[in-house]
Structure formats: C-alpha cells, structure tokens
C-alpha cells in the first residue's frame, strides 16, 4: 500500500490526482463549516453580484453566496457519485465474477445479455430509470449504479478470467479446495486491484453523469446546491451573470479531472509496465 502510494507520487498524474482528490475530499468533509454564508439565505438586494471581497465567487439569482453553495454542494455531488460508482461496481463485480467462474454457456449467456444492456447508452438508461423511479438524488444514484453495472461486470469478468487461468487457482482446484475458498481467498484478492482502478476512473464519469442528470432536471432538487443543478439553474440567468454558471461548471470539471488523474496514476502504480 505504502509503496503503491510512493509510486503514485512519482508519476505526475498520480501526484496531481492525489492532491486534487485530496482537496476535494477535504471540501467534502469540512465544506459546510468553512462556508462563509448560509447557502440558502436569500438577499433580494444582493442578486447577481460579480465576485468581490464580500462574495468571493459572487451571488446568484436569489442573492445567495455561490462559494457557500459550492462548498455545501460538494457533498451532494461527490459523495453521491462515489456511492453510485461503488454500488454499480459491487453489482457488476458480482455478476462478472460469477460469470467468469461459471464459464461455458452460462458465461456466454450472461455476457451477451450484459452486452445487450450496454448497447443502451448509459445516459439514456439512467434517464429512463430516473423517470421510472421519480426524480431525486437517491433515484439518480440508483440509475447511475444500474447504468454502470454492465460495464463493471465486463471489466471484472475479463480480470477474473485472467486470474482464473493462473496456476495457483489450478493448484487450489487440484488440492480439492471448495469453490467458495477459491473465489474468495485465491481469486478475489487478485481481482480487486484492477477493479479499484476502473472504479476511480468511473467516479469521474459518475460525477459528470450525475451533473448531467441534474442538469436535465432529473437529479437533485432545488434549493439543493448540487453542482449540476446549479449549472442548469444558472443557464437561465447566463446573461444576467455569467459567473453563476462558470463556477459550478469549473468545480465539476475539477472533480472529474481529479479522479481521472488519480485513476490513471493508480493504474500505472499497480502495473508499472511502461
């Protein structure tokens, strides 16, 4: 673990990724307390203010402080994305590993079906699911998780198959170990690493997908300060104050970049191939 961290710090992406994600997590944790204003406090006389000493990032259509809203929104945005990814990964990992372990026709059937589901663009799938469940952050979370599951299943399976071919698994079988032991103790520990990499990268997608859903009005609900929602609300006031749309957009991009970097860093750290 430690040396992986060391290796990550050596690669530019890894180091940068760690820093950015670290910062983001910091905001997620202490954000709400560090916010200078109440994110929902309206000020009829303070609307559409550009950045200033008083409001570092300016104010929005209700005269609410954008910085405070961003700081509060970090949780809604990042945590949700991480949870969604984790959930999707879990489901995918189970399906993938089972499929890989079954092999043969079972594997074929499962994977073909997974492919089929994957041919529905994940955004569309998420859209449909949210519409089905009714719009709310939680449902958006489920939708994204479900939209991710097939992809993760594919990844997990390919990794699991590679591990399945290893001789230590053969040895375990020849030894007469139980299926449970083989999957649990011999295979899984070797499968997790690549999956974690994939996961980190997908968190970036999740953040974007989440924002997109909120943007389409299907994610978080006002007056929540989820960043995607902030962008979509700000669009209406684009011409009254460009700042309103600029900041949350940048925030989203930053998070996505952070996790992309981190993911790539991890990948390089875990298999120092090139």
């Amino acid at each position, binding site marked *: 673990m430690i040396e992986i961290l060391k290796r990550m710090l050596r690669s530019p992406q890894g180091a940068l990724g760690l820093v950015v994600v670290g910062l983001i997590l910091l905001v997620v944790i202490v954000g709400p307390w560090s916010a200078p204003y109440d994110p929902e*406090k*309206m000020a*009829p006389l303070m609307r559409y203010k550009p950045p200033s000493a008083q409001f570092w990032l300016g104010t929005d*259509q*209700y005269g609410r402080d954008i910085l405070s809203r961003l700081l509060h929104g970090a949780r809604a945005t990042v945590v949700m994305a991480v949870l969604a990814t984790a959930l999707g990964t879990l489901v995918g990992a189970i399906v993938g590993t089972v499929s890989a372990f079954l092999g043969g026709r079972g594997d074929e059937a499962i994977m073909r079906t997974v492919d089929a589901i994957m041919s529905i663009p994940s955004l569309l799938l998420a859209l449909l699911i949210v*519409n089905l469940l009714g719009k709310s952050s939680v449902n958006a979370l489920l939708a994204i998780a479900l939209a991710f599951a097939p992809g993760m299943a594919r990844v997990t399976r390919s990794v699991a198959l590679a591990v399945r071919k290893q001789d230590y698994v053969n040895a375990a079988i020849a030894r007469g170990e139980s299926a449970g032991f083989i999957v649990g103790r011999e295979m899984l520990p070797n499968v997790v690493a690549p999956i974690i990499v994939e996961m980190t990268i997908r968190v970036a997608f999740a953040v974007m997908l989440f924002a997109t859903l909120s943007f389409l*009005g299907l994610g978080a609900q006002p*007056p929540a300060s989820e960043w995607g929602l902030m962008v979509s609300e700000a669009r*209406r006031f684009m*011409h009254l104050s460009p700042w309103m749309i600029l900041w949350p957009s940048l925030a989203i991009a930053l998070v996505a970049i952070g996790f992309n970097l981190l993911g790539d860093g991890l990948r390089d750290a875990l298999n120092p191939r090139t």
Partner: protein
Amino acid sequence: MPSIHRRDFLAASAALSGLAMSGIPAFAQTPRRGGTLRVSVDQAVSKLNPLVTRVNPEYLVAELLYSGLTRLKVDMSAEPDLAESWTSSADLTEWTFTLRKGLAFHDGSPCTAADVVATFEAILDPKTASPARQNVGPIAKVSAKDDATVVFNLSAPFADLPVTLAYTNAKIVPAAVIKSGLEKLDRQAIGTGPFKLVSFEPERQVVVARNDAYYDKARPYLDKIEVLVFPDVSAEASALIAGDTDLISTTPPTEFGRLQKASGVKALRVPSGQFCNVNFGCDQKPFNDVRVRQALALTVDRAAMVDFVTEGFGSPGNDTPLNPAYRFYADLPAKKADIAKAKALLAEAGYPKGLEATLIASDRPGQRAQLAVALREMAKPAGFDIKVETMPHATYLDQVWKKGSFYVGFYNMQATADAIFSLLYTSNAAWNETRWNNTAFDKLVFEARATVDETKRRALYAQAQKLMYDEVPSIIPAFFDLLGGQRDWVEGYQLHPRGAVFRLDFVSLGANAPKRG
C-alpha cells in the same frame, strides 16, 4: 362602455413604471404588403387541431389558420371575426350571431352556420376533450336559423358571450371533417384563417402562406410566416438579436435585459393578468383551515417576490386573480409580510411548532420553481418547513394538476373576470384546483355574469375579490408583465395582454426588412 374599459386599462399600464408600451397602434401609414416573417416560439407546436390546442405556440398557429366567430382585441373586448354582428335577448339567455357573406375554408368549401353549429357541438362533446368546453360560456343549445345565422341558447344569463366565444379553442372547423373524424386535423389545417398551412414539423417549424380567399381583402399583409421552435429561451433571444428571427412572441424576464440593450431590436412589454400562484387543496388538512392559508400568505414579501419571480417585470398580487389589467379590478390594500402574525395564526390553527409541507412545481416555465424556492425561504421564519419538489411538466399534469393539494400554478390572463373566476375558483370551475367551493363566492360570480349594469357588476366583482383576499384559496404573490421582442422593421405588432392572442395578420414588414425566400 368600452371607453371606461380603455381608461382602466391605460391607468393600469401607467401604474407600472414608464416603459416601452407596445399598446399604441402603429398604423401611421398603410402597411407594406408581402415578405416573410420569422416568429420564434419556446415550445413545440404539437397539436394542430384548434379544438384541442393547449399551449401558446399552438394557439398562435391555430389563430393563423382558423377563425372564430369573434376575436379578442388588445383591450380585451370582442370584435367581429367570422360573425359580422350579434345581438342578445334582454335576459341575456339567447344570442344571435350573423356570419359574413361568402366565407370559405382553405379547401374551397363554403363555411356556413352548419359548420359553426357542428363545431360548437363538437366542442361541447366531452369525447372531443376540448378545453373550450368549459370556457365558451353556459351554452345549452346551438342552432342554425339559416346559412348565415347561428343562435346560442344559454342555460343561464351571460353577458360576456361575445368575448368568451373568442376563446382560443373556439375555432370553426368544417362540419364534414367533424363527421369524418377530427384526427384529420392532426396533420392538415382546413380553416378559414388568414393563412394556409404550408409545412408542419412539430419540433422545428410551421410554415404558413397568405390565404387569398380570406374574408378581409386587405389582410393579411405578409406573404408567409415561419413559426420557429426554440426550446432554449436564451437561444431564442440570441436568434432575434442576431437578426435570424423577426419576432419573439414571449420571452422570460431573464432574457429581456439583453433585448433592451440590443440594437435594432425593440423590447416589448405589456402589463398583464398573467400570474403564478400557490394552490391550496382547501378540502384537506392542513390547508382546509383558512388560518393556515392566511398564515402562509402573511409570510410572503410580495415586492421581493416580484423581483425573484419576474426580475422586476411584474407587479405584486393580492391573492386575487385580478389586477389592473382587468376591467373589473378592485383596488384592495396591498398585502404586507407579517411573520409574527403568521406565527400566531399558525399556532391558533394548532401548529405551534410549525408545519411541514411539500410544494410541487412543474419545471416549465422556470418561474414556478423560482417562486416555490423563494416561498420556502420566506415561510421558514414563521415555522413553515416546505420541501420543494419539481417535476417534468408531463408528470405534473398527469399526477398533480387538479389533484395535488399544494402546488404552483401558472395562468394566462383571461379575457374577462368571469372567465378567470369560473375557470379556476368557482365550485363548478373547469379547473377547480383549490376545491375552495365557497357558495357565497359562487353566488357573486353567477350574479355578476348575468348583470349588464356596469356599476352593479363592478360592485359584485369587488365583493368576490374581497372574499378571496380574505380567505386565500390560493396565494397570488405576483403578476407578470408580458415580455417580447421584435426587430424594428416589424410593424403593426402589439403584445397582447391575454398572452394567448397574437393577431399576426395585422403585422407587416417595414422597408428596411431583409428579403427572405
């Protein structure tokens, strides 16, 4: 009598800070004929059948292709359309309309009293599901005396019939089509309107061309009108500023500022009775208790609300659907926010610890959510814990509209006080969203509609408004001015306070207009 009306109206406009009024007709010289006008609208034109149109863009198109018996002037009074004149019996229960000579549908077939009768029978048939059914007035029977004469027998005395017959959905369609099935009108237009349908792409554009067989030889002035759909309002404004379009039928306050600044663009603004409200289900807890409704009403800072919801392009409301733009508006003292009093009332009503409620707002137009969120904050100090839930308009219509007990509504101005009251607030209202069901109120409205005498009628409506002012079946915090924009080469266009009326057949293009194919 129209004169009084006009004075009220101007008074109303004056009341709203001096602004570029489009109310003044621009018929300096005789309009130039010819040219193509590009009008942009903010929603798809999904329905072509005029009897079932539901949104302004559809009304706009229907108005180009079809005619009613009467039509609504900018001052909200009725003027002849297919009917050249009308009379009523003394007791206002029988009205007779005389049609113009030689009217013809786009397919060349003549338009006669038979078509009018058939149309109104279709409208009144529930199966047609036409919004007009509840809005054309208490019609009991429609009959044709001869080819040119139609007689309406009413179930109750009704003074406003000529105005209500101008209702957006009361457009005359051929009897033959009605017989063969109205679906025919989903894709083609067979009307008597000033323009004929050229092409119809619901999501993109509708093109119409002058109908040379139109009854008025002078109008329309334009050869062609392209109605362009811009789902994105800011893009719509950009298009006008860039000169890609000539006219925006309605634009939100958030874009209005740009239009005012843009060169070559005239920003249009007219005070209107259009409003956003918060509907209470007055038949179920907690809002069946008048004190709860009053308490919430007392939390609203209406001046701030005008800012939040209309960006200042509007006027504060007093929880009655009438404002100075209406003829029978009663000037009641402006309501002020009073949190202490609100708290007290809430406690009296049995909610000393405050109360929770979920306020639903559809996502179109944006002002709904805007209002909801603002209200949420304003009501907090008084102990209201309001959760805002927005949803796609379709879901809203399907699940909440007319069913919910606490949601944000949005309404065009109606032609008459009676129209708005009996559309929304009487017990037998078409859209009785509040279930207020106040017999006293019903009685007042019913009396008023049967009264010809101006002053008596005004008094009755005043009492009705006072009732609403006190009992708050719904919070009406702000009225919108209607906003729009046009290139300065567009002549003869007047923003209509009704919001659903456009009268583009009076529009012409100036000499400096760009030539378009």
